[in-house]
């Protein structure tokens, strides 16, 4: 009986549930010193003076460092793609460009002294003009980098076809904001560095990409990568924001090299809200056109991406937005162009979906607006435009090739689970009776790209002399359950119980290379690599068994139920994995193992339909999410328990963006949502239990038939909830409300319509 496809409980759990995980801050590193940072309180200023003498004089302060002390090169431009004149120094030097930018590093004997010493550093600023709104930044009036002469960090200059909408009977346009949010993993950034006896830097990091950390530290500190050993303990969430290396982490490495003791840095949450990369941050303009009977012919999205003060991954994510421009629809003509600008705010980075939620949110809102314009049911409009299952592989107008899908199946299943017709009836009833609490129903049909980067992945399987297995993977799980999932794959191939399979990840000495975990790539890249290594080990084992059993290689079978190899027809004469492992060593001194560097088989395109049901209190604008239905297709599902968990978590973050969460700055660039008390991190009380289903359309792209599932929940959920809120008050004349649809925004939208229609009094 196959273990694949089963709801196997996680092997990781007993530890987490009884003694808790071991995160960087939990590590026992005797003799540790503690690092704290003094950060800019100004959004844009020249640093006039920095007086560190008060901090230096404190008992227990070991060192106080500015950028000049570090002597390190500026950080490189992202993937060589962004404006090279906009790269940051490791610590701020001369100019600070966002509130929270680190200026001074303090190393002290205790965490408490490090915190106390921060207050003794005096920074004097000469304020400069601030630009927060990307629309303003685009005007290039207030420049963050005068030497660049512009605030534009990156641009995708596609489209501009003036005739795109020529044959469209109906054309609808809308401005949208896909607002800046904060990833907020429960564990903030946390690293520790120490020099080991062999002169190497041992670096413990809460990261999604240990090998990336190794390589970035090496190049920043001017040492060879093999002089850096990165160890990743348990990681308390990442969501994309821990997929890159932050300047503070480089400072930890620098201090470790010089101070002869372990250096630890764990930020506070308030620091994290300013210093950990933010997500999203697009101002969009969409235009959609088609026939009056609901065939969409053309679509354009123009993106203005907020990069924050220094362009990083966030600045280039419109590339991914563009890849998914036309969504799951067979729109014949579509364009996406983007400009990424810098603003005096926290740099933006990848955050669950990384460019694709923005694409889906835009086109799904456009579809609803188009449906409204032609007075068509939004589900029907989608039904008429979804790519048919026979049309795959499907090349979109932006040259993305979707692998396989059955988009109509997902739509119909979602409508059925939701009881769509009954919902519309209930909505009608409440509208007719003028109920204070109106019902809104929102749809989102999505397709997204996973494993979109060309990296392959490393996987290795080794059988120990006792017959147990060691698996090494280049992925870097932080909650996804790879230990369970990869051991399922290996157990399936080798007939060894999962309890006897150890999975190692995150240690760059033990795992020589890997791309880490992000972009929903791990199963199809990393799992596939481990799977292949297991397949290869089985083949090698058969060779050994043939020798031992003095039989033909082709007559050897592996009985997976017992994990024993025998000659076909004579099961009593068998050899165990332990026997073969010992035989391998006896033969040539090498263990029974296989290592695979699996080239990426290419991206895959999970898809689905989400339906959201909300209730809007039209007197206060408060929105309550009543139900959320999610039908997702990620190809062959390896472990439905884990896959559902990913969908649930994704939905919560998607709902959060639609209803609640927003990073807010005032016009002087002061952050107003810099603690978890002010930032509306969604809680259990705001959410219902979700109604989730999977359809399975296996992909031909990889051997597992699997697509990624990690970001689908978020991508599908946000537009469904957003559309539902707009739908709830559409009959009052409201056309659009920007996210997050906070009570005040919803109420304000209702008021505006009422005032315009003369049915409400504007109150002063």
């Amino acid at each position, binding site marked *: 009986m196959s273990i694949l496809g089963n709801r196997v409980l996680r092997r990781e759990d007993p530890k987490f549930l009884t003694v808790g995980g071991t995160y960087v801050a939990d590590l026992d590193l005797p003799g540790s010193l503690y690092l704290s940072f003094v950060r800019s309180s100004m959004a844009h200023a020249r640093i006039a003076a920095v007086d560190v003498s008060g901090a230096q004089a404190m008992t227990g302060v070991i060192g106080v460092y500015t950028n000049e002390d570090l002597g390190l090169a500026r950080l490189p431009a992202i993937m060589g793609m962004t404006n090279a004149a906009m790269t940051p120094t490791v610590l701020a030097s001369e100019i600070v460009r966002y509130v929270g930018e680190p200026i001074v590093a303090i190393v002290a004997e205790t965490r408490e002294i490090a915190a106390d010493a921060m207050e003794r550093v005096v920074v004097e600023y000469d304020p400069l003009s601030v630009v927060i709104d990307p629309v303003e930044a685009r005007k290039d009036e207030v420049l963050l980098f005068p030497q660049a002469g512009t605030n534009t960090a990156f641009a995708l200059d596609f489209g501009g076809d003036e005739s795109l909408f020529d044959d469209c009977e109906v054309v609808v346009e809308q401005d949208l904001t896909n607002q800046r949010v904060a990833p907020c993993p*429960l564990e903030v950034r946390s690293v520790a560095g120490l020099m080991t006896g062999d002169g190497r830097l041992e670096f413990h990091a809460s990261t999604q990409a240990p090998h990336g950390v190794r390589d970035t530290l090496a190049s920043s500190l001017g040492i060879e990568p093999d002089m850096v050993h990165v160890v990743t303990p348990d990681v308390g969430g990442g969501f994309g924001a821990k997929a890159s290396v932050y300047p503070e982490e480089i400072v930890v490495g620098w201090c470790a090299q010089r101070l002869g003791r372990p250096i630890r840095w764990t930020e506070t949450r308030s620091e994290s809200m300013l210093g950990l990369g933010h997500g999203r941050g697009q101002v969009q303009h969409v235009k959609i056109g088609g026939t009056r009977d609901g065939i969409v012919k053309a679509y354009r999205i123009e993106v203005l991406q907020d990069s924050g003060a220094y362009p990083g991954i966030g600045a280039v994510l419109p590339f991914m937005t563009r890849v998914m421009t036309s969504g799951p629809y067979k729109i014949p003509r579509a364009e996406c162009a983007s400009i990424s600008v810098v603003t005096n705010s926290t740099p933006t980075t990848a955050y669950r979906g990384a460019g694709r939620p923005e694409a889906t949110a835009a086109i799904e809102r456009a579809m609803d607006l188009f449906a409204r314009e032609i007075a068509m049911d939004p589900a029907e409009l989608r039904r008429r435009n979804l790519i048919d299952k026979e049309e795959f592989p499907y090349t979109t107008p932006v040259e993305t090739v979707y692998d396989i899908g059955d988009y109509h199946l997902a739509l119909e299943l979602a409508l059925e689970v939701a009881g769509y017709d009954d919902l519309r009836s209930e909505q009608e009833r409440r509208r007719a009776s003028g109920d204070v609490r109106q019902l809104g129903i929102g749809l989102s049909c999505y397709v997204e790209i996973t494993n979109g980067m060309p990296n392959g992945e490393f996987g290795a399987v080794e059988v120990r002399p006792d017959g147990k297995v060691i698996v090494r993977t280049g992925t870097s799980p932080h909650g996804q359950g790879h230990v369970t999932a990869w051991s399922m794959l290996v157990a399936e191939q080798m007939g060894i119980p999962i309890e006897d399979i150890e999975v190692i990840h995150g240690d760059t000495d033990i795992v020589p290379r890997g791309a880490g975990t992000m972009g929903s790539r791990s199963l199809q890249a990393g799992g596939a690599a481990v799977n292949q290594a297991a397949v290869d080990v089985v083949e090698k084992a058969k060779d050994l068994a043939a020798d031992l059993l003095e039989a033909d290689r082709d007559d050897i079978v592996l009985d997976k139920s017992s994990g024993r190899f025998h000659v076909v027809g004579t099961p009593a004469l068998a050899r165990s994995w332990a026997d073969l492992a010992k035989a391998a060593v006896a033969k040539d001194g090498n263990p029974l193992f296989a290592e695979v560097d699996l080239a990426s088989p290419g991206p895959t395109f999970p898809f689905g339909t989400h339906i959201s049901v909300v209730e809007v209190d039209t007197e206060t604008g408060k929105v309550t999410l009543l139900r959320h239905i999610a039908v997702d297709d990620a190809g062959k599902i390896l472990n439905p328990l884990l896959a*559902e968990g990913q969908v649930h*978590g994704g939905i919560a973050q998607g709902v959060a963006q639609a209803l609640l969460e927003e990073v807010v700055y005032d016009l002087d660039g002061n952050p107003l949502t810099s603690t978890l008390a002010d930032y509306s991190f969604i809680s259990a009380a705001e959410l219902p239990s979700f109604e989730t289903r999977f359809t399975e359309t296996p992909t031909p792209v990889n051997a597992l038939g699997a697509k990624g599932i990690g970001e689908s929940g978020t991508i599908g959920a946000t537009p469904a909830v957003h559309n539902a809120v707009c739908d709830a008050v559409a009959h009052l004349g409201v056309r659009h409300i920007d996210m997050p649809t906070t009570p005040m925004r919803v109420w304000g939208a209702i008021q505006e319509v009422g005032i315009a229609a003369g049915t409400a009094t504007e109150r002063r």
Partner: protein
Amino acid sequence: MQIDMTVNGTFESDDVEARTLLVHFLRDAVGLTGTNVGCDTSSCGACTVLLNGQSVKSCTVLAAQASGEQVTTIEGLARPTGEMHPVQRSFRECHGLQCGYCTPGMVMAVTSLLAENSEPTEEEIRIGLEGNLCRCTGYHNIVAAALAASVNPELRT
């Protein structure tokens, strides 16, 4: 100042600064790192422990305030036999954790909630967990775990 308390049934004592938060006392002085710090505004609940059987945010209690009292952390929840507490077991069976960072606080909060309300509705559980934030699970399976534990007869033993 000298602080002592009973943690998971064991007497613990240490000389710490008055400003030492209970969560830091537990993690650093007692060495129980299961309880985590997730924020600095008493918002996230990752630090939840039981103080005299009631859930509290250990980041918002001074060690000095807990001196002389009984504290239970995640490490002290399992039965004396080592068998997991029904709430711990439910979390596993329902896949109520992913990265695990919120989990100790979440488990302690659910344990306290069920001690005060033995037959909670789903809504009561959700509102009862408003002080415990999770980013990974979307709460769906956490709520399922709490409901499952609430009907487990072993919870009363």
